[in-house]
């Protein structure tokens, strides 16, 4: 096993939307430089959980959280600056959401809000991020064209590049390929394998083949509970819990 301390250590996490409990006593840890897939039927809490990790749930009124999430050993609900957390823990959303500006400006947006002003440094960052996101060759001739002119798959890789440009440590991905065609999906899956070397990745997916293809460990959520969390191979071929087996074999969800 990995001798390094876990990237995230989730302990007895409960979360309520008003009166509704969305997460129930979730506890597990995520190792660095791994891809963790979160699967489960719609409304099971996997996306909610993902959004806890960079505290995007703060934006929703009436959310209450109990328990703790340690990121590099530090509680993310503690004194930690949420801006700093979101810089370290980047998020890619289900639907590509490029800003209505040029490709270049989209990538440079993150570094800029964190105070990078030097044009040369920004240009280097933009290029490096696009290369990392395997998009550079496709867009290098139109960096100053509107980002909304790209195809859906390109837009999603642009969003990944945009996150990479702020030099994060963790990538959270909320069903990043659900709005894309199979070819774009394949490109992004290949990309994930590359990115794993430098980043810790947590990906929520509805697509179980995808979870099987890309992830090292998989967590199965049901009704707000983490039913099972194990190496992906075990989840798919040797589930311990009956509910996991039922879900995997397509009996519900």
């Amino acid at each position, binding site marked *: 096993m990995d001798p390094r301390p876990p990237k995230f250590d989730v302990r007895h996490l409960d979360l309520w939307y008003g009166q509704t409990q969305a997460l129930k006593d979730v506890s597990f840890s995520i190792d660095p430089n791994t891809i963790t897939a979160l699967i489960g039927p719609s409304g099971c809490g996997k996306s909610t959980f993902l959004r806890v990790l960079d505290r*995007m749930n703060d934006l929703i009124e009436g959310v209450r959280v109990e328990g703790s999430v340690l990121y590099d050993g530090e509680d993310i609900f503690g004194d930690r600056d949420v*801006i*700093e957390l979101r810089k370290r823990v980047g998020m890619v959303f289900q639907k590509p959401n490029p800003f209505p*500006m040029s490709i270049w400006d989209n990538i440079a947006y*993150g570094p800029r*809000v*964190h105070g990078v002003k030097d044009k040369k440094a920004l240009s280097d960052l933009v290029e490096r991020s696009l290369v990392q996101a395997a998009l550079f060759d496709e867009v290098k001739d139109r960096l100053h064209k509107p980002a909304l002119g790209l195809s859906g798959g390109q837009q999603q890789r642009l969003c990944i590049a945009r996150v990479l440009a702020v030099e994060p440590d963790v990538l959270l991905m909320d069903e990043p390929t659900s709005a894309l065609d199979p070819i774009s999906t394949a490109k992004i899956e290949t990309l994930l394998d590359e990115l794993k070397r430098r980043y810790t990745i947590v990906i929520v997916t509805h697509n179980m083949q995808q979870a099987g293809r890309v992830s090292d460990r998989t967590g199965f959520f049901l009704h707000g509970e983490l039913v099972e969390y194990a190496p992906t191979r075990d989840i798919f071929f040797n589930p311990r819990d009956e509910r996991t087996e039922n879900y995997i074999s397509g009996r519900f969800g």
Partner: protein
Amino acid sequence: MPDTKSHGRRILQQKAAFAAIRGLSILTIAILALIIGFIAWKGLRFDRETRSTVLPFAEASPKGLAIVVNRESALEVVEAPVLLGIYTDEYINWSKISGEDTDLLPVAVDPATPEGAAARDLVFGAGAAEAIAWGGLVEFVPSPEAALEKVRTTPGSIAVLPHEALRDLAGIATVSLRRLSVVASADAMALVENRQVEDMDDVEVARLVSGGVPSWAALGGPELAVAPIAPPAGSPLEAAAKAAGQKPAGNPAIDMAGYLAALAGAKGGVGLAFAEDLVAFARSGEEAVALANGEAPSLAPLTRRGHERGWNLSLRYLVEEPRLSGRVGGISTIILNTFAMLILTLLIAAPLGVAAAVYLIEYAKQGPLVRILRLGTETLAGIPSIIFGLFGMLFFVDILHFGFGLLSGCLTLTLMILPTIVRTSEEALKSVPRALREGSLALGATKLQTIAKVVLPAAAPGILTGLILGIGRAVGETAALLFTMGSDYKLATGLFSSARALSTHVYLLFAEGISFDRAFSTATVLILIVLLFNVAAKRLVGRMGRNAAA
């Protein structure tokens, strides 16, 4: 099996509904086109009814004399009765004659000289010099050369000079004279049983003098045969009469005085005469005695009804300053004032309105307070502008002592258009997808950075539309401005100087009965400006939209 009968009925209903909707939309478009077309036509062209006792035959050099004016004058043609009026103090200013706000200076060469006498005869008619009443304004000069020099150097001056005296035309302009009148004997013009000869148009005049009308009754006058009297053969009048359509059948035996006396004496007589000869005739023996006894004149000119048409809206109208309450001149300063007003209003209203919308959408807790605020803004948007005007007058003009001026007017307009700007900006901000905000926040941007760099740019087309709508309302506003911005048509020199906007100008031109034609041309300019704004906004929004989407 489908019910074919009800199916057919449904199709018929749909067809009928479609036809009705199409008809209504065509009607709407037609009405809009009619309104704009009407205003634009009235604004571009004028068509005035004119009444005059002289016919529209202009002579450049009657009796070898030329009428000259200072080069700055816009006068091109003058009617003989007006020329007489100029030399008898009936006019003291050019405004009623040529529309210029210039003092009138009639110059006359000393009537003791032959040149002076000839000029006097053209204005007053030949005859006894002592009976002529020169006006007090008239400045007598010893020679035609002196008169020419005077006209050259004095704006607003006019003189009648022999043709030979005009060797150097620098600084002067010549004016044509209209002096041919249709005259009728007193019995034809008499009021009989509430009937009298009416004003005639050109066709009726031509038929009358050529003998085409048998009885004065056809023209609204008494039952009396028309007796055309031919002018003396070989006289200048005969040539003029030919031009007017009269058949040449002149009597060579008589002179002008004899001709006019014959005309006056004929039963139902009608003929042509030069205006100055009529003046001379009126001054002469019998006629003067009759007038002194309170009798009707035995010869009277008929009134011709004509139309004057031309371009109303000219470049000159746009670039000249208004004078005499806008009766004369153009609207340049008013256009500039309007733009100053719009810019100032936008400078105040745009930051306020957008900031309020950002607060309401992005920051305020959506509770009863915000609901009340929204209701308030919507109510304000529906309040008639006159009420804003009253408020502005009491609050800005009076309590804050800003006085009638740009600042008071713009603040009032700001209050008026703020609700529109806030509401449209709110809608624009609301329509920015949540995903964009989340994308920015997830990158570690603060809320303020997100709003400034992502949300506002994304909402910019919508916000801009709101601003244009507001500006559109402001540029057409009259009631709120009358009480707050004042109505001085000079160029505004500061925040507190009274300024007239185009809309106010249109209103005042109508309300004070100054000129309908000018009101319409100003209205056309106003419509063009609004059109300009809309086109500019469309292009701007279109370009922003393209940047965002393609």
